[in-house]
């Protein structure tokens, strides 16, 4: 089988991933896999590869400013495409638009529902969390993901109750 990327060499790296309920397979040679930033010994996902391979042919975003950089760590979009790795925590905000479709492909949902840092200095207050849930709720409604929207609404109500009760677990809750 020939590599699907360069169509020249024999494919020896085979990636399989389930995306949106569909099984996608990608066969490529070691060189192309490496260029795509794939760890051949432990391939992670097709999405990783797509991230890395978009160099000449961008995956799906608008031809916006070609080489934006993270204001904090100065990682450029091109660097991210090359390695599939971000430079610092702030990169998530800097490249939010580009990351959103990727995150939706890779994960179950596009927002976090797991643990949050507890009473850590700078941890997340219910107010901050509520703002984020509200944002996610608006998106879910706009995208007509109603099941998710219903769940988010319940969560938002619970958070508002906590805020109203002045949750002792969240000393930094904003008024």
């Amino acid at each position: 089988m020939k590599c699907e990327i360069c169509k020249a060499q024999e494919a020896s790296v085979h990636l399989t991933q389930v995306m949106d309920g569909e099984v996608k397979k990608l066969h490529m040679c070691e060189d192309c896999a490496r260029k795509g930033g794939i760890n051949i010994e432990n391939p992670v996902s097709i999405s990783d590869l797509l991230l890395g391979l978009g160099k000449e042919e961008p995956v799906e975003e608008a031809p916006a400013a070609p080489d934006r950089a993270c204001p904090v760590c100065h990682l450029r979009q091109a660097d991210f495409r090359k390695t599939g790795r971000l430079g610092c925590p702030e990169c998530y905000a800097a490249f939010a638009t580009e990351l959103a479709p990727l995150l939706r492909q890779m994960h179950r949902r596009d927002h976090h529902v797991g643990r949050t840092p507890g009473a850590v200095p700078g941890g997340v207050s219910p107010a901050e969390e509520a703002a984020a849930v509200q944002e996610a709720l608006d998106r879910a409604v706009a995208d007509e993901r109603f099941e998710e929207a219903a769940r988010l609404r319940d969560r938002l109500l619970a958070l508002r109750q906590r805020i109203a009760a002045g949750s002792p677990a969240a000393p930094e809750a904003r008024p």
Partner: protein
Amino acid sequence: MNVGDLLRQPHLWACGAGEDGIAASSRVRLARNLRGHAFPDWAGEDENLRVWRTLEPVLRALPSMQGSVSAANEAMTDLDRQILVERHLSSREHARKGRGSGIVLRADERLAVMVNEEDHLRMQSLECGLRLHEVWERMEALDREFEERIACAFSPRLGYLTACPTNVGTGLRASVMLHVPGLVLMEEMAPVVNGIQKLGLAVRGLWGEGTEAVGNMFQISNQMTLGAREEDLVGDLDRLVREVIDHERNARARLMRSRETVVRDHVGRALGILGHAHVLTSNETLSHLSALRLGIELGIVERLDRATVDALLLLTQPAHIQRAAGRPLGPRERDEARARLVRERLGEPPRRRRVRKTKA
């Protein structure tokens, strides 16, 4: 750290627990990063070194990490780093890193923290057998202790922020290592792998590639990290693994009903080769040890126990072989040393052998 100290203790795998040994080990790892610091691959060596020097004492002082040892990568030999990989305490990627990376691990190997691998912290909790919930509880306790002291990079919307977006959210990867020779021998592993992948989980051979896993050891893990609670990720995996274990039990039962002689032959040949060969490659050893492990679990081989086989699965890997020899060995020397070790542990009971030898 003294990796040599680790070598002297039996590995977790060889704990002998787990009713039928199909689930060899359970693991949960969390990816965490420090707020306000570039991720390890983008930060320079100097910054990585500062992070390591900050984190190392903090980690060692955590209540969960009492009795831990630590080592900077550059203070370890290549062989030591490889030993940690073979014991599943470190990753290949981490082993390749130099100055600025390091590891802190509890002497019982149940908790280990890689510093400056792909993320600032890769914390893992490991246990033999199928004990995902226990492993997760221990992991969560460590995470809480850590968070009381150091602020992690976290976004209310995206959760814990990681260098690679594939880990963002919970940063959690739970995995179970399964020994499934029954499914492989009955040629039923491919559909099982397919089903697991359709559920959005990842499955790969621990040794070798894809469904052609050498030694019939497969690792199943969650892929998605964002958008589900940690308990659900762990619980989903636990349920799936139990299903696979049931399939394996069925496959073994059918195997014994329909091809008992073939199975006995397979196991007997494996025991014969392991007990008498003088040159053993790594892959050959893994395949035969897998057959032997199956034979023990099916009651075909009675004079050996699973812990002996599990210990050999670890001790016959390249870095462990060389560590035992006390020097680096070429591939051929390794194969000879491996065969010697296996013969010693599996061969005829020592008393009878000695009698034979003294004849000369």
